[in-house]
């Protein structure tokens, strides 16, 4: 649905985005991660047709983004900008109505009412947006972004500064849009949100450093350590582990758990479990120690720097 091929954008001598290629499929959420100045907003602006790439190409729904197709493509995109960008002297409803008119929507009032209900803003419809809290303003901006039922959503920090309740509302809403077939690219600093929400995570730092499913990214940094939690004292099981993995095996006891390093967790874990059970262990839990997405992110960024 969104295709970015070898996107590069330079501002004078500074390269903001360099040779970035990725796609966002239908019914997919991709989170764009990266430090400040990594080129996230520039990438979103290029995809929204607001600024042109220095080189490379963009296609939305199979249509190549050009000067001639820009306006038509923008009708299919919902772009949430970094700042809500609401007209302060206008009410919530007026703000949405103007955007409804700009998108040439029919049944604007019905759509607005639906959007207001969705975001719990019905009782604020006649309030001037200057009087709203930051969270409310962000909700109005989101309602504006979704008003024309876009097939592509480009969201720049949608939950920045929002309280957990509103953040959850936004997350659920995006999941709904994904289920409805939307392609969603969301820029965020919130790694937890990226992990919870995104099907894939793209790490950007001028170049595309990595793009994969969150779990796959985490596996890249896997330590090869297994944690086996048992009922009772695990120290009696150390010999069993040494018998299976060799006397030099890295085994430690941490409370009620054995922690051990294996070279090939997928292959060795079943045999290990079988040996422990045979030795009388009552196994409560076996899991591979996985790094947090934050660790992966920091690792990738340290590689860049």
């Amino acid at each position, binding site marked *: 649905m969104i295709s970015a091929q070898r996107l590069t954008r330079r*501002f004078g001598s500074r390269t903001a985005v360099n040779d970035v290629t990725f796609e966002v499929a239908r019914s997919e959420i991709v989170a764009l991660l990266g430090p400040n100045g990594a080129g996230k907003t*520039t990438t979103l*602006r290029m995809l*929204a*047709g*607001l*600024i*042109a790439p220095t080189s490379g190409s963009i296609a939305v729904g199979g249509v190549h983004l050009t000067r001639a197709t820009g*306006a*038509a493509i*923008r*009708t299919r*995109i919902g*772009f949430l*900008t970094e*700042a*809500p*960008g*609401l*007209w*302060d*002297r*206008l009410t919530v409803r*007026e703000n949405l109505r*103007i*955007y409804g*008119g*700009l*998108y*040439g929507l029919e049944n604007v009032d019905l759509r607005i009412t639906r959007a207001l209900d969705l975001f719990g803003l019905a009782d604020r419809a006649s309030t*001037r947006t200057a009087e709203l809290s930051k969270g409310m303003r962000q909700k109005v*901006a989101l309602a*504006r972004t979704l008003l024309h039922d876009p097939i592509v959503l480009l969201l720049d920090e949608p939950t920045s500064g929002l309280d957990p309740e509103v953040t959850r509302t936004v997350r659920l809403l995006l999941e709904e849009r994904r289920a409805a077939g939307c392609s969603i690219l969301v820029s965020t600093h919130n790694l937890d949100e990226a992990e919870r929400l995104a099907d894939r995570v793209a790490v950007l730092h001028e170049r595309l450093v990595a793009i994969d499913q969150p779990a796959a990214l985490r596996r890249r940094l896997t330590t090869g350590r297994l944690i086996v939690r048992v009922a009772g004292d695990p120290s009696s099981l150390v010999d069993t582990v040494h018998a299976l993995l060799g006397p030099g095996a890295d085994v430690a006891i941490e409370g009620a758990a054995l922690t051990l390093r294996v070279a090939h967790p997928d292959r060795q874990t079943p045999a290990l479990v079988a040996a422990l059970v045979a030795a009388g262990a009552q196994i409560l839990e076996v899991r591979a120690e996985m790094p947090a997405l934050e660790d992966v992110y920091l690792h990738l960024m340290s590689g860049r720097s």
Partner: protein
Amino acid sequence: MNRTRIRTLLVKEFLDLGRNRTALVPVVIVTVLALLVPVAVTVAIPAIFGRGLGTDVGLVRVSEVVNAPESLSSDARVQLFLFQQFLMMFLLTPITGAMTLAAHSVVGEKQSRTLEPLLATPITTLELLAAKVFGALIPTFVISFAGLALYAGAIIAFAEPGVPSAMASVRTLLLILFVAPAAGLVSLQSAVLISSRVNDPRTAQQFGVLIIAPLAGIFVAQFTGSLWFSTRALAVLGLGLVGLWMLLLLSSVALFERETILTRWR
């Protein structure tokens, strides 16, 4: 060009202005002044000093350019000349008040961070800039035309006999309905162009003041009698102004750099 989008953005401009009426105060003040000055000069001052306008040789001489009906008295001829000359001033001076609105239009959207979501819609640059110009022009002319009704009322009430009917001419209509709006479009389009090229509202307003300079020149030339537009000259002037406006509109579109505005302006 999609007229619905222009209309929609115009509605936004009017709603915004309706909630910020102080922005229109300069237009109202200038309109009131433009109404009081001609009445004072042509009616009040001569009445206070007991000297008819027709006794001033200089005024009688410059007023000959009007080509007034023979039946008018000497006082009435001078009054007709002055009311005609003040009419142009009356119609054009409110534009100076609206200059701030136009000068603030694009840079104001950028400053309040409303420009980026707006540009992310299908609106074209031409539609955006046209809406910005008409958004400043229409309220200004509403106020100006309300003042015009008072101006006409003052002429009917205080002018010498024959002056009101002599004022009701093709020339006057041309001035009101064609030349003044065209001049307004040129001035405000220039201000919008400037607004899309500078990154600070104060700079935009400073440049906007420069646009007023040619208007001031026209006023001075008018009252020395060295500049008189016949009906035909006004028609040509109006057409020229419309042409100039279209040229300015296209130049504004060509010079509107979305990318620079979005990425460089702070």
